[in-house]
């Protein structure tokens, strides 16, 4: 498969981005420095092109029932104008993907991971009822630009034609017009900061990017790439599909039990998930290490008794000032304060002292 150029590829290159293949797309990894971009998002604002994400519309009289079966969270509680995080699971509880579900008056929009686009679509089609539900894949025609950081609201506000984006509460959304473009304004993100995600037609991506970028300059906005997105989401304790969760992990063990609503009735994977929730054997934890001890995915976690887990994400947390990681450990090792060791290297052996800490690592000031 050839990697697809995002609509804003030329703009990213003009801004000096180092481009990298990710999820089937050529994406900006970093513009100048991951640390500077990370800090811009925490202190001021960052602008992300995440148009690689997939958007699938679900419509028809059976759409709600269909999504209730497909998604672990309770979609019947999702009111128009709100968004919901959840996972799609296989019968054995393995995670097909994590996703956001938006509800509009007459339809739903599922936002899925780029790398899972084909697998998700196949899964979603496989579970379509004979009639009453229509899927419409809008991934190729839809841009997604995320404006994140404490100054995001001030930057966006004067560009919105009707109403204030301030009225959009966290995990809410509404249609709006920004710089003359009709789009969806959503108060969501993947950074642990306040901010907005804007979904609109690909041909208008440049108009929106340029308007936000230029308006953001006086606030110290920086364009931010996937590198900063990763360190930001790690500090915020947010799972990354393909690293922290995948078809071999389930949402209960992954600490996503809050989006698994077993009480809503049977859904795909619910039998397995109920069984797992009664006697989980592992848990997903945050791990703090020393500033010069960066743990990486696949490294083994040990206790005095031997190997007890594995790292799934790890990097330096710029805003917490030390190395941080997430991963799975045996249930009895999951309590905050538990002292563990991560094997950073096998030849020659190199170990890091590690402490289990609550997630997230980073809290927004005032939160």
């Amino acid at each position, binding site marked *: 498969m050839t990697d697809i150029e995002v609509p804003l590829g030329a703009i990213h290159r003009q801004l000096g981005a180092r481009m990298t293949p990710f999820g089937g797309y050529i994406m900006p990894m970093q513009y100048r420095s991951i640390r500077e971009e990370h800090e811009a998002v925490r202190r001021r604002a960052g602008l992300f092109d995440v148009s690689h994400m997939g958007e699938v519309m679900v419509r028809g009289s059976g759409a709600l029932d269909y999504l209730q079966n497909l998604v672990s969270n309770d979609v019947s509680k999702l009111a128009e104008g709100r968004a919901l995080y959840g996972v799609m699971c296989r019968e054995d509880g393995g995670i097909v993907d994590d996703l956001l579900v938006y509800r509009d008056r007459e339809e739903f929009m599922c936002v899925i991971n780029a790398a899972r686009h084909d697998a998700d679509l196949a899964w979603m089609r496989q579970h379509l009822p004979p009639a009453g539900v229509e899927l419409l894949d809008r991934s190729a025609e839809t841009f997604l630009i995320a404006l994140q950081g404490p100054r995001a609201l001030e930057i966006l506000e004067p560009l919105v034609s009707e109403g204030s984006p301030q009225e959009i509460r966290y995990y809410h959304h509404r249609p709006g017009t920004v710089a003359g473009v009709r789009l969806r304004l959503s108060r969501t993100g993947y950074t642990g900061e306040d901010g907005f995600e804007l979904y609109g037609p690909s041909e208008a991506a440049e108009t929106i990017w340029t308007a936000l970028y230029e308006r953001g300059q006086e606030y110290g906005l920086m364009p931010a790439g996937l590198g900063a997105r990763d360190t930001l989401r790690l500090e915020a304790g947010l799972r990354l599909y393909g690293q922290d969760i995948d078809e071999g992990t389930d949402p209960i063990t992954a600490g996503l039990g809050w989006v698994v609503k077993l009480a809503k009735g049977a859904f795909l994977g619910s039998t397995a998930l109920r069984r797992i929730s009664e006697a989980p054997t592992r848990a997903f934890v945050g791990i703090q290490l020393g500033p010069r001890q*960066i743990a990486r995915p696949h490294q083994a976690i040990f206790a005095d008794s031997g190997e007890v887990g594995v790292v799934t994400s790890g990097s330096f947390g710029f805003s917490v000032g030390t190395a941080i990681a997430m991963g799975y450990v045996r249930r009895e090792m999951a309590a905050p304060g538990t002292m563990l060791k991560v094997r950073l290297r096998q030849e020659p052996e190199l170990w890091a002292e590690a402490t289990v800490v609550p997630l997230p690592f980073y809290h927004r000031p005032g939160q």
Partner: protein
Amino acid sequence: MPDLSGFKFTKTHEWVRPADGGEAFIGISDHAQGQLGDVIFLELPQVGARLEPGARLGAVESVKAASDLYAPAAGEVLEVNAAVNDAPELVNQDPYERGWLVKVRLDGELPDTLMDDAAYQAYADADQH
């Protein structure tokens, strides 16, 4: 681009630049720092350590990955760049000048397996794909 005519490169993306008196500076290439992303810290040898060509010299830990460093030539470590320990971002910002890693006394000539700038740039371009 800086003038790299005095630099020789390894296939593992280190550079060595001979200076006066049989001394030389060692660092990593611009290509390497770009691939690594922000350098978080460096693990560098002690003054007096012996270097052998191709042997592990230390490691660069970046936001994305840990990467071993290999000695481009034989010699003895005379000095470790304190500036990059305090400000590892120098390796990203200025890999050929302020971002040097160690100064060594060379045992003799540089190995003839090292590449000059033109050969290395072609090698690095090919490495990218």
